[in-house]
């Protein structure tokens, strides 16, 4: 990163009351306050949100893609972990 470049921030927007904040993208800003305002200008100008979270990207720790096999593969054949073995009445649509 160039020395004079502003740090990168990850932006999370809650689109309406009751929903979760969702990751929408990232942007540059000099500090947290500016990141929130930049996010307001970049990501909510078409009424996409009512709340903004920002976090400096360097504080996000990610799983290692090289370990994807040992991390995620083992769950593949454990279908019994899904609650899909119940008989549900037809009227129930949203379960």
């Amino acid at each position, binding site marked *: 990163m160039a020395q004079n470049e*502003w740090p990168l921030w990850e932006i999370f927007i809650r689109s309406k009351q009751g929903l979760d904040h969702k990751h929408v993208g990232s942007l*540059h*800003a000099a500090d947290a*306050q*500016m990141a929130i*305002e*930049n996010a307001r*200008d*970049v990501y909510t100008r078409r009424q996409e949100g009512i709340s903004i979270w920002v976090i400096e990207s360097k504080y996000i720790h990610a799983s290692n893609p090289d370990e994807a096999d040992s991390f995620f593969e083992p769950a593949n054949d454990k279908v019994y972990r899904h609650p899909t073995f119940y008989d549900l009445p037809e009227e129930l649509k949203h379960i």
Partner: protein
Amino acid sequence: MTATNHLTNYIIHLGDNALILGHRNSEWCGHGPILEQDIAITNISLDLIGQARLFYQYAAELMNKSSSVTGLATEDSIAYLRDVMEYKNTLLVEQPNEDWACTVLRQFLFSTHQQLLYNGLLKSSDQQIAVISEKALKEVNYHVKWSAEWVIRLGDGTEESHQRMLQAIDSLWMYTAELFEPVPYELWATQNNIGANLPTLQNEWMKKVENIFSEATLPIPIQKGWQKGGKTGVHTEHLGYILTELQYMQRAYPNCIW
């Protein structure tokens, strides 16, 4: 001068301030110092041009009711078919962008004034003006916050950014007193409880500017602003260039629509 004329002039003056500053800011579109701020300044442009539209639509409605105006007035005819001397914006808003320091300082000085003015206009006896001000105030509150933070950031930033803020103050301070010196249609508006009382806003404006400048480690010039005339149609050379670009399509291809 009839009451309708005073009222129309007053509304057009409010619209002109918004349109010309909106146009100035729009010149940054695609040239902002960083993508995020390019979008921020363009958003402010759109807020201001939106305000201008509301004022012009209202002015057009009044003009069409008045017998002294020939031809149909519309928001477009008001924006695109008036010449420099008919424009009633303050000199401050037509000043060139120069650099980012000049742009954010111009925004701060003007938006702080506009915030106080629109707050006063919430109590206007003219319902339409009160309603437009209420809607616009939400936008202006953000413009003040955004621009004040930039003034502090640059004023209290590096040696170069501080120097550029000093230059910006040098170029713009002279135009600030005009914001608070009422011209005849403003005096009429105040007398009829339609407009806000400008001189009484000046103290509060000064307090806010002093606060932000002090946080930005910037000096307040000793001398009060002295340049004026925009509100009565006497402009700096810059407005002509703005209108040449702004009005080009309608002048070159009258009534063109796209």
